[in-house]
């Protein structure tokens, strides 16, 4: 079973087209293994980016370097999955 300990989901809001282009470039970097859960649609619209733990530093540095505003939407993906699993087990019981 794949675990997602420490993976985060970032809510990113690009303020202009230039930032959107930068984010698209970021998304194309296969080695980061990031995944847009909610895609980029336009300036001012939030996008949600799943970032595996090993890529967190690189992604956050990239966002901050380019002054792209973001917040952490999910602190630890695995913690939520654990909670979900617990709820399912409880409900089945």
């Amino acid at each position, binding site marked *: *079973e*794949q675990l*997602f300990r420490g993976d985060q*989901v970032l809510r990113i809001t690009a303020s202009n087209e230039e930032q959107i282009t930068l984010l698209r470039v970021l998304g194309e970097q*296969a080695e980061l293994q990031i*995944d*847009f*859960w*909610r*895609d*980029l*649609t336009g300036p001012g619209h939030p996008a*949600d980016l*799943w970032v595996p733990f090993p890529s967190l530093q690189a992604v956050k540095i990239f966002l901050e370097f380019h002054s792209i505003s973001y917040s952490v*939407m*999910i602190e630890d*993906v695995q913690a*939520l*999955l654990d909670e*979900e699993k617990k*709820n*399912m087990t409880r*409900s*089945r019981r």
Partner: protein
Amino acid sequence: IQRSISTFDFASYHTLEEIYDWMDMLVDDHPNLVSKIQIGQSYENRPLYVLKFSTGGSNRPAIWLDTGIHSREWITQATGVWTANKIVKEYGQDPSVTAILDSMDIFFEIITNPDGFVFTHSSNRLWRKTRSINAGSSCVGVDPNRNWDAGFGGSGSSSDPCSETYRGPYAHSESEVKAIVDFIRSHGNVKSVISIHSYSQMLLFPYGYKRTPAAHHQELNELAKKAVSDLAAMYGTKYAYGSVADTIYLADGTTVDWAYDNGVKYSFTFELRDTGRYGFLLPSTQIIPTATETWPALLDIMVHVLEHPY
């Protein structure tokens, strides 16, 4: 253990087995209204089941609904289960549902990507694609919403098997997609296709693979506007609406574009509720509110299809 439809918990997430068992119970309890048909097999040989809601007749005009083509979007499969149950409950009670089913059939594929769905339960909760092996790559799976023969292969999808939007080697390469294509084509009288996803809160229609407005853009836009307004009336959930290309981005090879290009005028795709925090990990407490608010919008589309034969 005696099976009972009355004890099924619609407010919980369920495994494939539990949902398939529930489908059998629904059919057993309503044999004159619901039947289960198998339209094919998944890559890993799981049956692809469709619930048929019909009050009789032969090759009636039909509405196609599917949920969960992206396996990790659990709220959609859960909404599908609730909605199928709602259709049964409302037939004979709600005049709109009754009128629809008195002259049309509804086909509902609740688990459109069973391999992916099982994988989300066993190995990777965040799995989106099918589970087919890609020749020459260690990455598994194809995005089944980029695999349709509508602008297939364009820049609004990926040629990289490791990408979440990998389009696959050729259009309809995925058995899960091909089964729907074959079914809709062989039926020949499908008037509406509604493909349900999550999350983002949007109601979208063709086109996604080009910016050119669909021939029926105005009618689809007005219908979408009414549907999202009725949806919002329940809990105030705000939806965006419009063509895929205008509202989000260019996306090639999608279900709704294929349906529209194959003569299904009322082709829509939903992106269900996002609470703004959990994304695909929406807590199960959100299932009933999501399904409940989606219902009037679905009904708007289905009633419009009934009242605007073509």
